[in-house]
């Protein structure tokens, strides 16, 4: 019984680290630009598809595949940023209207990128080489997977790295200035559009890394990856607290734990039901998110 709880917790944390990585990228964009990017998942999917194609044609090493995924996702993300986010500046639109226009544009590009991917590689499922082709790790009676350990490590490293970037570099200072007071930042000489572009690229690269780790863990790539990644990232972000980086990690891990326990207690059909129920209940009662509750700070609310 206790072993079950421990295994479920481990599984949940492993699953949650994938969600945490996805949420980090999504949150960077939302936290800095205050806009939702519905094409986030599909950009990651394009990166994964690029790596799949490279794998089918050349069978290179894992490192190359990781690079291709990240590069593909970043390129796709840059395309989305240029077409849907950069044009809707604050010159003529209110903040809300710009956010909505960018979101709808990103929805349109979501559809476009998904179709591009399925035209490129039309099969319903492609296999992807795993990170570690050997027996599963066992620490005592508990099974662990190398890919998920790598994900946890990457999520932790990403969180730390982002923190360092935001608080120890000039670029990070510029980003924080833009988040707090965009007009003042612009007047202080910060190139706001360039900051947005770079943050977007960083978020897409993070997403690409998340995508790579996810497809090596699943050992397959399917066309569902796009929508799945976007919404898992969004749900994890909302659970943890909109626009907060530690919140993204907390939310991702929480989502993983909820899914793991629900599946083991009630079966796979109820897994998603319970996750959505928790999200709904949280939004109805404490929309500020888990991180705000845990850290007890006055974070952004409705």
């Amino acid at each position: 019984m206790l072993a079950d709880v421990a295994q479920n917790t481990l599984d949940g944390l492993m699953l949650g680290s994938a969600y945490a990585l996805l949420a980090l990228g999504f949150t960077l964009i939302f936290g800095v630009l205050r806009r939702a990017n519905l094409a986030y998942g599909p950009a990651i999917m394009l990166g994964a598809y690029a790596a799949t194609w490279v794998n089918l044609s050349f069978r290179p090493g894992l490192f190359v595949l990781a690079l291709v995924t990240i590069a593909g996702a970043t390129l796709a993300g840059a395309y989305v940023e240029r077409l849907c986010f950069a044009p809707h500046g604050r010159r003529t639109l209110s903040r809300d209207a710009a956010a909505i226009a960018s979101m709808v544009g990103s929805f349109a590009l979501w559809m476009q990128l998904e179709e591009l991917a399925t035209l490129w590689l039309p099969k319903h499922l492609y296999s992807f080489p795993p990170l570690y082709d050997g027996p599963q790790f066992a620490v005592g009676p508990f099974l662990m997977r190398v890919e998920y350990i790598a994900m946890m490590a990457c999520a932790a490293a990403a969180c730390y790295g982002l923190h360092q970037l935001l608080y120890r570099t000039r670029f990070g200072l510029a980003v924080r200035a833009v988040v707090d007071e965009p007009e003042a930042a612009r007047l202080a000489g910060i190139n706001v559009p360039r900051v947005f572009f770079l943050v977007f690229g960083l978020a897409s690269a993070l997403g690409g890394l998340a995508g790579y780790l996810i497809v090596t863990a699943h050992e397959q790539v399917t066309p569902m990856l796009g929508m799945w990644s976007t919404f898992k990232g969004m749900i994890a972000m909302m659970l943890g607290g909109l626009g907060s980086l530690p919140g993204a990690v907390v939310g991702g891990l929480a989502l993983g734990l909820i899914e793991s326990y629900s599946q083991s207690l009630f079966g796979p059909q109820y897994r998603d039901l319970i996750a959505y129920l928790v999200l709904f209940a949280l939004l109805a009662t404490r929309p500020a998110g888990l991180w705000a509750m845990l850290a007890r700070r006055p974070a952004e609310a409705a």
Partner: protein
Amino acid sequence: MSRFLAAAALLAVAAPAAAQRLAADVDCRPTKHDLVYDCRIALKDAKSGNPVSGAEVSVGADMPSMPMAHNVRPVKAKPGAAPGEYEARIELEMFGEWALRLDVRGPVRDVIVKKLAFREK
């Protein structure tokens, strides 16, 4: 409320037709072209199991997960060898699960929906 009086008036004009239920067995084989399939349909009465021949069968397809989006233009099926058998060649937009819609006219009017998974070879 007025919208329903209007609709009810329209519906009152329509005459009820034969409510015979049909059943169908559908078997789709891939052809040498990707996403093109030759489907053989065996149409029969749902209760008695008797084959239904001489009907006009039109085969359309839609994907359940994004309804009305992947509309495949319906194809008229040709009568096959045995009584109650029909053949049609359909062209799909992508691999995955499709809901084939068999529109039957002729002696009997019915619509049968069959879900089939079309996977790559």
